């Protein structure tokens, strides 16, 4: 992994998190899986709302999929929003049928993705968010595979 594969930024409010997601939405190269990780309440679902808004959604369709496991938003391109928080094994994750979508034209976003990182495809953009002492959120982007790396390069200002 070279330095060019990663990018780091911070947001201070939910609105800033949504704006960051809008910027990210414009930089993504599909097919791609977006693997989200980070502490509870850091703003993962808020980030997905920003993606949906950037792609023609109202944002209101985006809610937490912790219980429903899988929600699809008819944005353009469409977003499959999954959450593996309450799944117990890789098998349970794979049995949702997500592999069938992985090479498709839609974006797959998985919350708590680090739990089952080994089953993700090469083309994955890993996004980790942590809450700082100040309450600010630090977002770390790391691109895997050709599309993941290209997506991060498009994000980096240099």
């Amino acid at each position, binding site marked *: 992994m070279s330095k060019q594969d990663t990018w780091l930024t911070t947001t201070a409010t939910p609105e800033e998190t949504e704006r960051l997601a809008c910027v990210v939405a414009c930089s993504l190269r599909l097919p791609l899986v977006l693997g989200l990780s980070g502490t*509870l*309440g850091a703003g993962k679902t*808020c980030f997905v709302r920003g993606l949906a808004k950037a792609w023609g959604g109202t944002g209101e369709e985006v809610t937490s999929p912790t219980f*429903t496991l899988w929600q699809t938003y008819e944005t353009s391109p469409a977003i499959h929003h999954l959450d593996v928080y309450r799944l*117990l094994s890789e098998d*349970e994750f794979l049995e949702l049928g997500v592999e069938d979508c992985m090479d498709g034209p839609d974006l797959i976003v998985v919350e708590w993705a680090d739990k089952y990182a080994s089953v993700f495809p090469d083309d994955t953009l890993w996004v980790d968010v942590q809450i700082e002492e100040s309450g600010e959120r630090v977002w770390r982007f790391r691109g895997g595979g050709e599309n993941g790396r290209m997506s991060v390069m498009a994000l980096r200002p240099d």
Partner: protein
Amino acid sequence: MLILTLESTCDETAAAIIDEQRGVLGSTVASQEELHQKFNGVVPEIAARAHLERILPVIHETLAKANVELKDLSAIGVATTPGLAGSLLVGLVAAKTLSWLLNLPLIAINHLHAHVYACQFAREETIFPCVGFIVSGGHSHLYECRDPFSFEYMGGTIDDAAGECFDKVASMLDLPYPGGPALSQLAKTGNPKAYRFPRPLLKETRIAFSFSGLKTAVRYMIAGPGQKEVTASHLSPGERADIAASFEAAVADCLVGKAIQAVKRTGVPRLCVGGGVASNTTFRHQLEQACESHNIECLIAAPELCTDNAVMGAIALERLRAGHVESLDLDVRPGLVRHSQ
């Protein structure tokens, strides 16, 4: 008229047999103990494959409980929306097969409408018109329900559902997952006024819930910002109970406040509540009190009908009577449709 209803939208595989006159003759939910034993204690919670393994034993068990044979049935009802595509398909394929084989009408059930309809078992007369309120792990929605076929979405959560928020706060307090019931238990010994947590959107006129910010407020109370892992090990048992009670009070205030707001907006003086969180005693009690002081008839589904089950699929009888029968082309609709159809 005797109907078999099937439910496989998410975690539970369930079947029920309901007679128009005599009510529920048999009901099985696959998380029940006897079925655990049949599978040697191993019942995978979520996968569609688990539904596949369970659906036939569940149907057989229900028929046996009801002392009914397949040939006695007059219709098959099945939940087709919302839920997981793979899980929904298992129920639908079973229902279609029975419908074709026995030449019986096939009825589509909306899982969320069925949750509201669970309240029909608590009332002699029809529950319609009413405001329907579904509060569960995955949903926190208010509907204006004019009749069994028209549910108009009034509003719901814009981020986390109430039950999910319960489970996540429980995890911050080191309670075992699923933590909702454990958190309520802990809250009983705490002071609900010890901490003042936010009541998001409560003062606003829009019908909506937001529990994400409340979750973060509790997190900061427990650990403060900047902590990667949240643990409550540094708190005394009393402090933990106070946090649980104060949090539960904040959620209950939001749910009750918005429900009353919604009922007032429609002018229909009846509220029908279903979903897993509706079995929470603090919430039930507070809602009943608030409804009484506002002259609203409050119907809350019986605790065993709050969590996912097939008995609430009795709403299919209403569709059958009205002639809303589906063809074998019927498909599942996994996503949530917020507005009535």
